[in-house]
């Protein structure tokens, strides 16, 4: 394999977040003269991702940047990868045994959930009923966001009544149903937090359908185009955004350093920003675009 | 008079609005060939299914050798020594003729492997070939699925099957309907041979000369009810037709 070959394994194919990460990585890899191959399984799940990691291992790149879909299940294949001479780093997510890693580019999803709680609390005057729309359990990042949100509410906002999470498997249709049904049961619903973009699209639709836009405050994770537009239109009032393209670029910087034999920081924290309704330019900056596709 | 081998009394069976059997009676004595005749839709096949445990009557009693029985599955009838060729044959179309012959009564190997249920395909195959040639069944290949055989060939397989397993009573629901002349003759011969060996036969057929040729007794169903029970030696084709259709005779003439 070429001396500057780098592999990037995304969490799943076809999600705006990872598309943006891919574009960021590809742009930087070109600048740095790295040969980048991007791969991904079609679902965000360990059993789907491991064969991809195995195949990457077989192609023996110099550096592999991986978004592990499970902190434990990915350890053995990644250890194998490292053991066969590839320098391994994690991006976005990580594994519970960092000893085999050169470095981690981390997002603190729990903190992000907490930021969402703060933002939503501020929007609803620190009281009222709130609902979370998230993925069915088992998806690390989503679980952490919900947990961070719930813990922050419990610790800081005693007057907010948390109705608990409802689940949608990347299904905006289902998210819309949940919102409209919840409004039937709780017409006084004050706020909604969606832990990803598909949930947010569905939730906004549900609010629109119910004529509750603006009345029910909404904060959502990610900055997909639809979410940014909704923020600017006042359909949701806050976004918790990451910068996937920057994470991709950072990963390539680290890869170049590793190939050159330079030292790297053990952990790089990726930034998370809370974007308010009054910060449209910030939203534009963080919008998940995949200009390279 | 000795006890009947199989006796059914007051059998009723209704499907939705259709009363297929409205209190039919039926009786087979040991060692006789009984023909069961009747117009299309008279309820013959329905009665056959009930006698074979493949269907349950809504009302009525069954007796085997005087003992009242209730067949909850075809297995119960099989255990009483009854084997049946159904009008719709009831073969597994994807299996070979030999597999069909042994369906539900597969031969297993001797010894430990047999205990584990391992099939003895070799013996099954050999016995199948014997049985088929005994009946004059001609199959161009033993290894094809039944579905690709001609109608008559399929019927022959079904008959071979019933003949092989009946110990007391064979029921044949229009067995010769699709058979050639030679094969038909063989089936009638088979009926006689089986009877002479002490096994009773119930034969359903729309071919009246055939019925009179082979049967000892003729049992007539009309609109789900028993209307006559004649000694074949005393009856003519005209008698049988009259019994089956009586009331409709004029319509027929028209």
């Amino acid at each position, binding site marked *: 394999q070429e001396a500057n070959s780098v592999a990037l394994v995304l969490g799943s194919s076809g999600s705006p977040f990872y598309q943006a990460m891919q574009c960021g990585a590809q742009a930087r890899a070109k600048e740095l003269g790295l040969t980048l191959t991007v791969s991904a399984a079609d679902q965000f799940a360990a059993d789907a991702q491991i064969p991809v990691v195995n195949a990457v291992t077989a192609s023996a790149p110099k550096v592999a940047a991986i978004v592990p879909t499970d902190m434990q299940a990915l350890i053995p294949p990644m250890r194998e990868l490292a053991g066969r001479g590839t320098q391994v780093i994690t991006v976005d997510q990580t594994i519970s045994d960092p000893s085999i890693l050169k470095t981690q580019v981390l997002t603190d999803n729990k903190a992000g959930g907490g930021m969402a709680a703060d933002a939503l609390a501020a929007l609803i005057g620190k009281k009222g009923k709130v609902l979370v729309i998230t993925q069915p359990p088992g998806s690390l990042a989503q679980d952490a966001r919900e947990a961070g949100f719930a813990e922050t509410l419990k610790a800081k906002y005693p007057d907010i009544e948390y109705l608990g999470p409802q689940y949608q498997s990347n299904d905006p249709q289902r998210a819309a149903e949940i919102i409209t049904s919840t409004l039937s049961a709780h017409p006084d619903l004050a706020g909604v937090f969606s832990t990803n973009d598909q949930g947010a699209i569905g939730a906004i639709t549900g609010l629109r359908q119910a004529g509750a836009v603006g009345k029910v405050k909404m904060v959502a994770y990610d900055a997909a185009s639809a979410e940014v537009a909704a923020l600017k239109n006042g359909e949701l009032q806050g976004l918790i955004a990451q910068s996937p393209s920057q994470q991709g670029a950072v990963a390539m910087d680290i890869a170049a350093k590793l190939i050159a034999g330079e030292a790297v920081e053990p952990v790089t924290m990726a930034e998370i920003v809370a974007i308010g309704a009054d910060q449209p330019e910030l939203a534009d900056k963080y919008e998940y675009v995949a200009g390279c596709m | 008079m000795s006890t009947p081998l199989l006796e059914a009394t007051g059998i009723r069976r209704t499907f939705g*609005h259709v009363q297929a059997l409205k209190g039919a009676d039926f009786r087979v004595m040991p060692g006789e060939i009984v023909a069961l005749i009747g117009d299309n839709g008279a309820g013959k096949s329905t009665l056959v299914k009930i006698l074979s445990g493949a269907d349950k009557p809504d009302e009525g009693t069954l007796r085997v050798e005087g003992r009242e029985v209730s067949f909850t599955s075809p297995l119960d009838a099989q255990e009483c020594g009854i084997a049946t060729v159904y009008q719709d044959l009831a073969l597994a179309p994807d299996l070979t003729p030999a597999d069909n012959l042994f369906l539900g009564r597969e031969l297993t190997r001797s010894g430990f492997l047999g205990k584990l249920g391992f099939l003895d395909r070799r013996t099954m195959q050999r016995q199948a070939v014997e049985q088929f040639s005994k009946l004059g069944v001609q199959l161009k290949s033993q290894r094809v699925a039944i579905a690709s055989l001609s109608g008559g060939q399929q019927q022959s397989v079904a008959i071979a099957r019933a003949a092989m397993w009946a110990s007391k009573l064979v029921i044949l629901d229009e067995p010769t309907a699709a058979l050639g002349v030679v094969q038909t003759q063989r089936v009638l011969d088979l009926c006689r041979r089986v009877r002479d060996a002490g096994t009773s036969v119930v034969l359903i057929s729309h071919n009246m000369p055939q019925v009179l040729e082979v049967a000892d007794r003729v049992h007539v169903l009309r609109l789900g009810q028993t209307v006559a029970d004649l000694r074949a030696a005393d009856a003519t084709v005209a008698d049988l037709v009259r019994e089956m259709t009586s009331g409709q005779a004029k319509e027929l003439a028209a």
Partner: protein
Amino acid sequence: MSNDLAIAPVESTEDRLLRLVAGGWIFLLLLALVAIFLVLKPAQFGSGYNVQQLFINAAILLVLAVGQTYVVITSGIDLSVGSVLVFASVVSAKLMLFLSGAGGTTYGTTAAGWDIIAIGTVAALLVGAAWGAFNGILIAVTKIPPLIVTLGTMGMALGGAQILSGGVDVRAMPELLVTQVGSGRILGIPALVVIATVTVIIAGIVLHMTRFGMHVFAVGSNAEASRRSGIPTMARLIQVYAISGLMAGIAAVMSNARFSTTTINGHAMDNLATISAVVLGGTSLFGGVGSVFGTVVGVFIPIILLNGFVILGIPPFWQTVAMGAVLILAVWIDQLKRRLRKRG
């Protein structure tokens, strides 16, 4: 006997109605569910608001499920509906965005007029029907099992949509489409519900009252017999899958209008949802038997269940369990009642 014929020579309207309501008992189950939720939470469940939401939520799935009904009656199955929806919505949205000039008054929308929307709509329908016809051709001509063909095109259409869109939902929709169709009303009824109702009624009439519909049943009942009777079975199969694709195209436009964005990752479950609705509605997976009315009932059952469960505050995990149980129970009751009726 022959006077039996004389008594009922022509099917009465009542009989025909009964036959139409093939999923009759499921309908009663639906009513029972509604009654239970009404008794437990009358104010919330029975409110005009809630009822309207139920209909809007059902609209897109109804259109998909009606197409699936045609397919299942031919003893086929269409796993690709969700992916074809996604593909058609991406093509349509991209095309409308390309043709649009200025932005709309809100963000994420364009000022495209009805002409552009019409073009986008036609494109979605054509693309959907084309995928469907592709399915149909493979199934009818090459005799590959429908499950395999549509599993294959499910991947191809989704992959194709991702390639076209770069995996990122299309940025902007025509504002008119979103406001007039997605959230608009016609005579006070939500436009999406109107579209779905019209589609369902037309599909029902075609299936149950025309020669084409008769052929669909015949092909599903016995394809070889239909062929020997001179029915162009291949053409019918291709048309049926094309209809299913067309429905996915209609649903794509509705989805674009409703969510005001493409939802590339959002339709993975549409195939199982529609198939279970069709079967709940009394259509046999072995073909030859079925009704559009039954499917409509089958679509509403899970939607009403979810709604009722959320209103009653049943925890989400239990919802999954209960939904599965009700599905089985519903079909079971249906089977029992049918058997009873048959025994008479």
